[in-house]
C-alpha cells in the first residue's frame, strides 16, 4: 500500500513496502537531477540551489496544507485563496496601518486558520461534500480579497521581510528549514498525539471512529483549521520571497498542492499520510520547475509534465494497492 503510514503501519511495512515507494520517488528525483545537471551544470550553482530550496520550502508547505485534509478523506480547494487573503491582510496591516511585522504576520496566520475553521465548520454542519464547500469558499475568500484591496499589491513592506526572503544559510534558504520544521511538527502530531491519530482514524473509517467515541466533527474542523493555517504560512513565505504582497499569489497552487502529497503516497481516501513522501513529492515538482527554467525550455512542458506525472503516479499506486483494495472490496460486498 502506501508509504509510511505513521501512526498505523507496522515496523516491517515501514521498512519494506513503504520505503520502496519513497525510494522509488527519490530515485526519480535523482534521475531528473542527473539529466538536468548534465544538460545545464548551472542548475547546481549555489545561487540556483538557493532559489530551488526557497521555492521547495513553499511547495512543501502547500503540499502539507492539502495533506492534512486528505488525512480525513476530505480536500481543500481554497488553499490558494486562503493564502492570498493572509498575504494581502498582512500587507495591508504593515503598509497601511504600520502594524509591526511580527504582529501583522501573526494576525495573517490567525486569518488563515479562521478561514480554514470556517470551511471545516461548514462541512461538518451542512454535511456537504468538502469539494463543493471549499470550491465555493475559495471563490468567496478570493472575491472578498479583491473587493477590499481592489487587487492593488502592497509593495512598501518592511525591509526585514525581503531580507528574510534573501537570507542564505550556505546555499540553503531558511524557508526550507522552516518547512522541514513544520514537517517535524506534523510528524509528531500524526504519530504521537491523540488528536492526530483521531484525525487519521476518521479518514480511514469514519463510522468506526465515531462508534469508538472519537469526536468526528471536531477532528474534521481541526484538520481544516490546520490546513488554513498552513496555507497562510505558505502565502507569507511567498510574500517574503517576492518582497511584496501580490494578489496573484496562490493562483497556481491547486495542482502542486495535490501533486506533492499524492506523489508521496498519501491516500486520497484518507486515513494515512506520508510526510516524507510529501516532501519528496514537492522536491520532484521543484526539480522539474527549476530544470525547465534553467534549460530555458518553453514553460508549457512543466504543465504537461506535472499533469502526466500525477496521472502516472496515481495509476501506478492504484495497481500496487490493487491487491488490498480488491480484497477489502470483496469483504464489503
Amino acid at each position, binding site marked *: 500500500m502506501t508509504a509510511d503510514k505513521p501512526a498505523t503501519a507496522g515496523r516491517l511495512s515501514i521498512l519494506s513496502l513503504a520505503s520502496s515507494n519513497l525510494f522509488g520517488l527519490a530515485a526519480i528525483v535523482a534521475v531528473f537531477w542527473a539529466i538536468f545537471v548534465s544538460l545545464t551544470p548551472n542548475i547546481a550553482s549555489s545561487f540556483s540551489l538557493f532559489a530551488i530550496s526557497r521555492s521547495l520550502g513553499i511547495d512543501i508547505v502547500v503540499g502539507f496544507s492539502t495533506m492534512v485534509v486528505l488525512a480525513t478523506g476530505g*480536500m481543500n480547494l481554497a488553499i490558494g485563496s486562503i493564502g492570498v487573503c493572509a498575504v494581502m491582510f498582512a500587507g495591508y496591516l504593515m503598509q497601511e496601518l504600520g502594524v509591526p511585522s511580527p504582529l501583522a504576520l501573526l494576525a495573517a496566520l490567525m486569518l488563515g486558520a479562521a478561514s480554514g475553521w470556517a470551511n471545516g465548520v*461548514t462541512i461538518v454542519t*451542512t*454535511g*456537504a*461534500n468538502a*469539494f*463543493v*464547500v471549499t*470550491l*465555493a*469558499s*475559495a*471563490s*468567496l*475568500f*478570493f*472575491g*472578498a480579497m*479583491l*473587493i477590499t484591496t*481592489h*487587487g492593488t499589491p502592497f509593495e512598501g513592506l518592511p525591509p526585514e521581510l525581503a531580507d528574510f526572503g534573501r537570507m542564505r544559510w550556505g546555499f540553503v534558504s531558511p524557508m526550507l528549514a522552516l518547512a522541514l520544521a513544520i514537517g517535524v511538527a506534523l510528524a509528531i502530531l500524526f504519530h504521537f498525539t491523540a488528536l492526530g491519530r483521531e484525525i487519521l482514524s476518521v479518514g480511514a473509517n469514519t463510522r468506526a471512529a465515531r462508534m469508538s467515541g472519537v469526536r468526528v466533527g471536531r477532528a474534521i474542523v481541526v484538520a481544516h483549521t490546520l490546513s488554513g493555517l498552513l496555507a497562510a504560512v505558505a502565502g507569507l513565505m511567498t510574500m517574503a520571497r517576492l518582497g511584496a504582497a501580490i494578489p496573484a499569489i496562490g493562483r497556481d497552487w*491547486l*495542482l502542486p498542492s*495535490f501533486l506533492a502529497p*499524492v506523489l508521496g503516497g498519501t491516500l*486520497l481516501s484518507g486515513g494515512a499520510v506520508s510526510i516524507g513522501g510529501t516532501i519528496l513529492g514537492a522536491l520532484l515538482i521543484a526539480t522539474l520547475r527549476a530544470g525547465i527554467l534553467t534549460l530555458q525550455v*518553453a*514553460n*508549457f*512542458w*512543466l*504543465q*504537461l*509534465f*506535472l*499533469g*502526466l506525472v*500525477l*496521472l502516472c503516479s*496515481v*495509476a501506478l499506486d*492504484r495497481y500496487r494497492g490493487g491487491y488490498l483494495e480488491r480484497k477489502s472490496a470483496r469483504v464489503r460486498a
Partner: protein
Amino acid sequence: MNTRLLEKEWPALAVAIALGFGFLAATSPAFLTEFNIYVLLRSFCISLLVAFSQMTTLAVGQLNVSIGALGGLVAIVAGGLMEKLGVPIGVALAAGLALGALCGFVNGVLVTRTGIDGFIVTLATASVFDGINLGITKSIPFYKMPAALVAFGTARFHALPYLLIPPVLAAIALAIFLARTSLGRYLLAVGGNPQAAELSGVPRARIIVLAHSLSGFLAAGAALLALAQLGSAQPTIGSDWLILSFAAPIIGGAALGGGYVSVLATALAVVLLTLIQNGLVLEQVDPFWVEFLLGGLILAAVGFDRLRAARAGGG
C-alpha cells in the same frame, strides 16, 4: 403541495429571476435597452454550455475540473486550423467538437479503467491540456478568424444574438436525451445507484465514458462560441469556467453524488447568474463582487439543500 413545490428548484429560481429583473428594470434605465439585453444574452450563451458540460458529469456522479482547460485547447486548435492552415469554418468547428469529445473520452476511459477518483484524473488532464495549449500558442492568440465566423458571433436579430441558437438547441436536445432516451436514463440510473443500474443490465463503465465524452463535447461547444464571440482564439478561453460550471448545476439542485440533474433549473440558474453579473455592471458595483457572490450562492444552495433534507427527513 407546499412541500412538493419546495422540492422543485425552478420555481424559487424563477421568482429570484423575476425579482432581479424587476429591480434592475426599475433602478437602471440602461437595463431594458435592446443592446443591454443583447449583451446579457451573449454571455448567457457560453455560460449555459459550460454549465451543461459539468451537469452531464454530475449526472453520473463524477466531477470534471478539466472543462476550462479542455475548452481553451479546443478554441486554439480550431482557431489555429482556420488561421494557419486555412481550414474551412465548418470543418474546423467540427474538428473542435470532435477534439472536445475525444478529450472527454480520454477522461472517462482513465476514470473507469484505473478506478482513480475523477477529480484527480481531470485535475491532471487539465494540466496536460493547458500544457499543450501553451505549447501551441506560446500564449499568443490567433487573431485572424474568418470573417463569416466573426460576423456570426456578432450578428443579432434585435436583442437576440444568433449565438443563442446552438445553446438553446443543446438545451432542448439534452433535456430530451436525459428524460426520454434509454441512454439518458441509464446515465441518471448509474448516477443514482450504480449497483442497481449494473444489476439491471446497464453497462456502467461505458455510461461513465459516455458522460465524460458528452461533457467534453459541450465544453468544446462553449469554447467555439467564445471563439466566435471574441473573434480571436485566446489561449485563456475557459480559464474562468470552473466555479461557474459547478455553481449553475448546484444552484439548479443537481445532486453532487449523481442521479439527479435538471436542465431547466440549471438553465435558470445560469440566467440568474448572468443577471447578477449584468446587474453589478449596471449598478456600477465593483466587478470583484461577481466572484464573491458566486461562492456565496453555492454555499447558500448547499445550505438550502441541507435544510430541505432536514425537513424531509426529520419532519
